[in-house]
């Protein structure tokens, strides 16, 4: 599903690579945690997958596609096959919760009926259905995070990438989101989660890829968080 071949990423204007010599293969249907200290390159790795950034060298393959080779006009259609939870949420502050989630469907020219069927269901799953008409800027940090998760899953993508999806959540809500991701994983969706949530990583014993200073230092099936 996702394959990194010798990927190095140096942001423009930087000298130190944020990722270096990454080789990684994630199969369809896997559930993978990306862990590592702050600044290790976790977000950069996810950005390469949904092509917010292009690799400086090496190749990134997603679902059989070399993302660097995608034509500009094909990028939107590629991104529609993914669900992404951004570390900074990336919600539209002056739109309502409903509109923010419906947004992901509207850009695909989905029908009104489909929007009215799917959005409430997604909001229900993250426990935000009763706040559907509140504007994003009026939400608490954790509520925004849950809306971001709802938007990522509303299109039923075959790959979900979640960058720190529980950072602003209390343990109970955090577990609920994680259970949600496990559920959709069980239904066949590939899930990649970058996280600092040690307790959860340790409890779930899923595959763990550990980054440090831009390189993979550990890649274990049924791994643990493994930091102090």
């Amino acid at each position, binding site marked *: 599903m996702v394959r990194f071949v010798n990927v190095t990423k140096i942001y423009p204007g930087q000298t130190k690579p944020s990722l270096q010599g990454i080789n990684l293969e994630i199969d369809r249907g896997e559930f993978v945690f990306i862990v590592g200290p702050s600044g290790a390159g976790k977000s950069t790795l996810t950005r390469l997958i949904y092509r917010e950034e292009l690799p400086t060298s090496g190749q990134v393959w997603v679902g059989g596609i070399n993302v660097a080779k995608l034509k500009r006009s094909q990028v939107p259609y*590629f991104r529609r096959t*993914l669900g992404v939870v951004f570390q900074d949420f990336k919600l539209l502050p002056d739109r309502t919760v409903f509109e923010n989630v419906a947004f992901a469907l509207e850009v695909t020219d989905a029908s009104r009926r489909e929007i009215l069927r799917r959005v409430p269901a997604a909001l229900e799953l993250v426990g935000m259905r009763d706040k559907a008409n509140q504007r994003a800027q009026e939400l608490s940090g954790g509520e925004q995070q849950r809306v971001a998760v709802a938007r990522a899953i509303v299109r039923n993508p075959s790959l979900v990438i979640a960058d720190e999806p529980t950072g602003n959540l209390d343990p109970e809500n955090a577990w609920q989101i994680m259970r949600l991701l496990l559920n959709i994983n069980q239904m066949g969706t590939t899930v990649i989660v970058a996280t600092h949530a040690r307790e959860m990583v340790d409890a779930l014993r899923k595959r763990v890829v550990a980054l440090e200073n831009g390189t993979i230092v550990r890649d274990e099936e049924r791994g643990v968080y493994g930091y102090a």
Partner: protein
Amino acid sequence: MLRSWAQALRQAVQSITRSGLMSLASLATVSVSLLVLAVVACVAVNLNLMARELESQLEIRAFLRDGVNPAARQALIEQIQALEGVRSVTFISKEEGLAMMRERLGEQRWILEELEENPLPDSLKIELADPHQVVAVAEKVAAFPQVEKVRYGQGVAEKLLAVTRAIRIAGLAMVLLLMVATVFTLANTIRLAVEARRREIAIMKLVGATDWFIRRPFVMAGILLGMVGAALAAGLVYMGYQYLVRFLVTNLPFVPVAPPAELMQPLGSGLLALGALLGMVGSWISLRRYLRV
């Protein structure tokens, strides 16, 4: 497809009404620009009209020797009419000549009241098809033996032509300059609107919106703004021009003016089309660099 256009229109209207103050500002800018443009166009059209009128008044007057009989006169008229660049030749008897002079002098016709007899000779009024040939035609006419003297405002002719040309060039330059300024203002207005939604555009791209999907409401908003601004400008110009024409016709009846109805109809539709075009082009350009995510 139709549905999505309707949706884009709704979004455009929404985005215009939502950012109320900013849209008002854009509207005002577009209106002011197009208004100036329209005013310049009106001025140019009328200056042009005036220049044409002045040019058309460039006529040659040929004074006949005493004693040219009607038959010889008729022959002369036909010969002159055959010259290249001549549109019409009219005979003016000495009496008609005096009457015309009296009229032309207007309030100062008392000068002629003192005359005891008509000092004017018979003459021919030669109107030209092409005012630029005035000198050439005049020389040919002067060569006829029946003609005593030729008058065509030597010197004035050249000056008048120079002024006319200058007026046309200046008018065109002004219109072009203002066109560019308008495009610039409009594009920047929309670019600022885009700037304000930069974050939103980046997010749209990241969740898989096509460039066209993102562009649509902006382009629609641009067109709407351009057209509403144009309509405002057209309305103002129409009112102002009508008032001006009424004033001129009453107070300076000898100044030629383009009739409002005739001028305003093409100007109005032109402004609307221009507004729409400018809005579209402006928004299209403005979005270019924001779509690269």
